[in-house]
């Protein structure tokens, strides 16, 4: 009886016995898959950059494009180094405005979202005006703000803040309300106070929403700071990167224009990387967006 069963199962066992050799291969495969996972994230954009900048460099040499029309990447890097004294000053100014605006947007956006969440009538009264502020193009109100504010720096800050503020506000508002019905019931059962419900339930639930708003706002506050400075068009001591671009274009110092542009893009990239890192650090244990898919 037992023998007969074994006979029948033998082909099956043959299948299973092929397994060990296969699992030897799977080990190499996991390494390969780790590489394949890293590949699109890091290596692909770098490869693309090499191709892009290599092609750019080549095209300029091949077609002998003059540097005052389009400088080549190496010249831009050289200009960054050569003009570092001036550019770093401006970079610092732009960074200050950007981060102050972002900080203000976080503080005011989150506070306002909490107030809206706690007092519905206040939301009904005020939120539409936040929307109005958001949908009005910043370039069209920047001149007014520059006239009203008594110094340019403050005007830039206000402009950058207006642009950065809304995504944080609206995302946090959605987050504060996106709570599982059962968890709401649970807190109601425990007779949690409004404050405790906010602290232990609503705020943590809003965190992923807030963070995705922060990532958008990080880029927007830089854009706001740059755009406002363009509109203001005033330079002098402690002017930001946008003014360096204006100045360079007036003076036809095209490599410097590109150097300033490069710094702005690099800043934007760093802000995005920083906010993404922050988001990952805060959410990695629990939120889908930060979880690595188990394979």
């Amino acid at each position, binding site marked *: 009886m037992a023998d007969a069963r074994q006979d029948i199962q033998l082909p099956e066992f043959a299948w299973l016995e092929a397994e060990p050799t296969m699992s030897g291969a799977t080990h190499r495969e996991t390494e390969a898959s780790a590489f394949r996972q890293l590949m699109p994230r890091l290596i692909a954009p770098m490869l693309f950059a090499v191709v892009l900048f290599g092609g750019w460099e080549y095209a300029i040499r091949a077609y002998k494009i003059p540097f005052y029309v389009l400088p080549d990447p190496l010249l831009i890097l050289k200009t960054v180094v050569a003009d570092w004294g001036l550019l770093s000053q401006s970079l610092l100014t732009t960074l200050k405005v950007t981060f102050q605006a972002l900080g203000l947007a976080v503080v005011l956006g989150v506070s306002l979202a909490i107030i809206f969440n706690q007092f519905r009538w206040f939301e009904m009264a005020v939120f539409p005006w936040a929307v109005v502020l958001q949908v009005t193009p910043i370039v069209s109100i920047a001149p007014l703000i520059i006239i009203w504010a008594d110094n340019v720096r403050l005007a830039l800050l206000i402009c950058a803040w207006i642009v950065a503020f809304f995504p944080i506000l609206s995302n946090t508002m959605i987050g504060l309300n996106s709570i599982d019905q059962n968890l709401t019931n649970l*807190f109601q*059962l425990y*007779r949690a106070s409004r404050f405790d419900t906010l602290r*232990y339930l609503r705020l*943590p639930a809003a965190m992923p929403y807030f963070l995705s708003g922060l990532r958008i706002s990080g880029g927007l506050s830089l854009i706001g700071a740059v755009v406002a400075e363009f509109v203001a068009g005033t330079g002098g001591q402690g002017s930001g990167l946008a003014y360096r671009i204006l100045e360079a274009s007036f003076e036809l110092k095209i490599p410097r224009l590109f150097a300033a542009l490069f710094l702005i893009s690099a800043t934007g990239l760093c802000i995005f990387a920083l906010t993404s890192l922050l988001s990952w650090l805060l959410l990695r*244990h*629990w939120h889908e967006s930060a979880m690595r898919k188990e394979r």
Partner: protein
Amino acid sequence: MRLMNEGVLATATGERNDARQVPVVRLAHVSKRFSNGTLALEDFTFAFPQHGFVSLLGPSGCGKSTILKLIAGLNEPTSGAIQWMGGQSQQRDGRRDIAFVFQEPTLLPWANALRNVMIPLILSRVPWAEAKSRALEALEQVGLAGFESSYPRELSGGMKMRVSIARAIVERPRVLLMDEPFAALDEITRFKMNQDLLKLWQAHEFTVLFVTHSVYEATYLSQHVLIMAPRPGRAYARVAVEAPYPRDEGFRGEPLYHERCAEISALLAETSHG
């Protein structure tokens, strides 16, 4: 004959201790109509005995969850009364009146197992160190010692349910409401959880109201099985399962168990088909 209204008090049999058969909460002629016009419960009367284990069984939509929510105070009855013995108070000698185990684990995804179990204690301002040691103890009681710092994402369905149960018992409630807590588990895990639940119940002496769709689970666990009739929901019959506790897996082989299962199944079929 089977129809009854007054709950277990009049005809209690097979209780652990007759002197204890005092109701802890009594629903008197309770009706519940939702704002969309659904009449979920009509004239439901039942008294839940103190330290008892009662299961609610009935076709889907007959108002079982509604009863638990009414008792928990998450919904208000449209008419009728919910009477607590000695009045309801939130905290009494450090014990909460009610704990609720929902059908889903309902954990805070951003908090690890320990923090999840600590939540009720934190909300009632128990000092941190004490809250922590009590939560650890509760986790140990549900067999999750060593998993304190795991996040819900890292736990299996059964483990999450255990965390949810630990959170419910950590405040030593007088009444434990459970709404199909094991419905999503495989049978072996469910049997194990049934065992553990009975142990906890005997250790803590709380009153359990247990909603389930499984005749076998209800019979295995309960002192009394309350069968409900649908549309509108009302109490249809009560079956006492007189077997003593502790009950172990062997009980599932006993004639009494099979008899009760058959009886309850028949009653359930009766109510479900009109």
